[in-house]
């Protein structure tokens, strides 16, 4: 006798331990197998794009801190690069190097959170997460030294950075650079050889390279699919063309590759950091800027390789003190486009780790 069955619809979120904020997935299950999934967004929409149209260019920098709060420095950087492109501002050498240092520290910190949260989604009961926090804490200490903040830094300025680094910063950073590779090895050893993790992550949630490009995926998600595309090398900004670093790419684009790419990127970031510290020139840290910047009429698109993908700012100026249009190309929102393709046919537990492996931050998705 055939039992009468019907699919059940479960709203995962907006309040759920592993949706990384207030995200909702409307999932249709057949037993435990997913037959349909629809992301529902907007629980954290604050209208930042509209807000920014009423503030001056400098006043908008703190707003960018509130996008992806796990990567505030890189948000700052993307925005000030766009404004500098719009207004044609030259940035002092030292400031460029400081920006690179901060951006790479931020990338390590963001990837630590991504990997930790991903393993937490795998069910590793907080332990890897808290180990990652131990290292993230050191990065936050470094940021606190330079700008007094631990979460919303507001450090970059149009034309440079807000402060020069204090004396104790460089020794602390050198110490961090020296010990970080050991910690990355520790995590990799602990986790990459774990049979359960391999069984859970290998071959799960495959995003083929073609689909990844077509759905405009970016960052580690794109590179895990085997596409060697990193804006730091494809379209170098700041002083990235002076550093020697590799772009790790995955092979099949499954959950494990995304995890692996993040681990490898942390190693490359440490490499960039050590080169940037060696090359750090002395001098000014901020170009002299007018109190109220009035860029010429026009438009500019500034983009960087953020920890979560290509973060871009599209600015339109009408020669007033505030941007006429302020658009954010949010990498995490666009990476979510492929979520349905990756999850359908997998089980509930897989959906959670596939979602975790995209590494989104809802404050940036909803803006």
């Amino acid at each position, binding site marked *: 006798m055939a039992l009468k069955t019907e699919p059940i619809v479960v709203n995962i979120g907006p309040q759920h331990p592993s949706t990384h904020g207030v995200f909702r997935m409307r999932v249709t299950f057949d037993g435990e197998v997913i037959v349909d999934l629809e992301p529902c967004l907007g629980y954290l929409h604050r209208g930042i794009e509209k807000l920014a149209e009423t503030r001056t260019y400098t006043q908008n920098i703190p707003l960018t801190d509130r996008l992806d709060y796990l990567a505030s420095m890189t948000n700052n950087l993307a925005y000030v690069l766009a404004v500098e492109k719009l207004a044609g501002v030259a940035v002092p050498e030292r400031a460029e190097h400081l920006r690179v240092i901060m951006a790479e520290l931020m990338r390590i910190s963001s990837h630590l959170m991504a990997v930790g949260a991903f393993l937490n989604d795998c069910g590793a009961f907080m332990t890897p997460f808290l180990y990652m926090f131990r290292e993230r804490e050191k990065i936050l200490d470094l940021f606190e030294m330079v700008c007094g903040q631990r979460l919303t830094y507001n450090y970059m300025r149009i034309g440079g950075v807000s402060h020069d680094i204090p004396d104790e910063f460089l020794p602390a950073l050198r110490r961090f650079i020296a010990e970080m590779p050991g910690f990355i090895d520790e995590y990799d050893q602990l986790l990459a050889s774990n049979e359960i993790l391999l069984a859970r992550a290998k071959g799960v949630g495959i995003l083929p390279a073609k689909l990844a490009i*077509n759905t405009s995926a970016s960052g580690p998600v794109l590179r895990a699919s085997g596409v060697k*595309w990193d804006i730091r090398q494809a*379209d170098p900004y700041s002083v990235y063309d002076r550093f020697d670093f590799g772009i790790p790419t995955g092979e099949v684009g499954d959950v494990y590759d995304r995890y692996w790419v993040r681990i490898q990127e942390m190693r490359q970031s440490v490499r960039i950091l050590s080169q940037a510290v060696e090359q750090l020139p002395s001098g000014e840290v901020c170009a002299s800027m007018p109190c109220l910047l009035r860029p010429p009429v026009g438009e500019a698109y500034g983009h960087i390789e953020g920890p979560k993908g290509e973060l871009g700012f599209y600015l339109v100026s009408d020669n007033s003190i505030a941007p006429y249009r302020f*658009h954010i190309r949010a990498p995490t*929102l666009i990476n979510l*486009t492929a979520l349905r393709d990756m999850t359908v046919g997998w089980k509930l537990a897989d959906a959670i780790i596939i979602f975790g492996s995209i590494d989104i931050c809802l404050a940036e998705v*909803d803006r």
Partner: protein
Amino acid sequence: MTTLLCGHEVAKQITDFLPDAVAVGDGTSVIIKGERLLPVAQFLQNTPGLDFDYLVSITGVDYAGYFEVVYHLTSIKHNHGLILKTRCYSRENPALPSVTSVWRGADFQEREIYDLMGISFSGHPNLRRIFLWEGFPGYPLRRDYL
């Protein structure tokens, strides 16, 4: 370094393919007539030498008189970029064809523009508001919304 293709040259190539598609081609961008957007998008994606396989971002800008929708395109193969623009002049019912069938990455971004700017994209598989709830009055990113 991603080279930004010159608008004039791309405009010429598009005109060869579709004579009435290009409105203006200037130094940095190509402005396309709205109703010809879809064939032009397919042309840009599939033509060897252009190969714009990656849609970076879509932005809507409200220039009071008209809406401009900006497509930033990149070719990962050749590492070059293009800024494609299109305009719609209706304020009550602005509509454009959707490019989701060409670049699926447009999905959420077109929904976002529909939600916040009020431009509807015909042919979009799931055109509903993405951030705000159904029935929200007005479109916040328009300049006249206060």
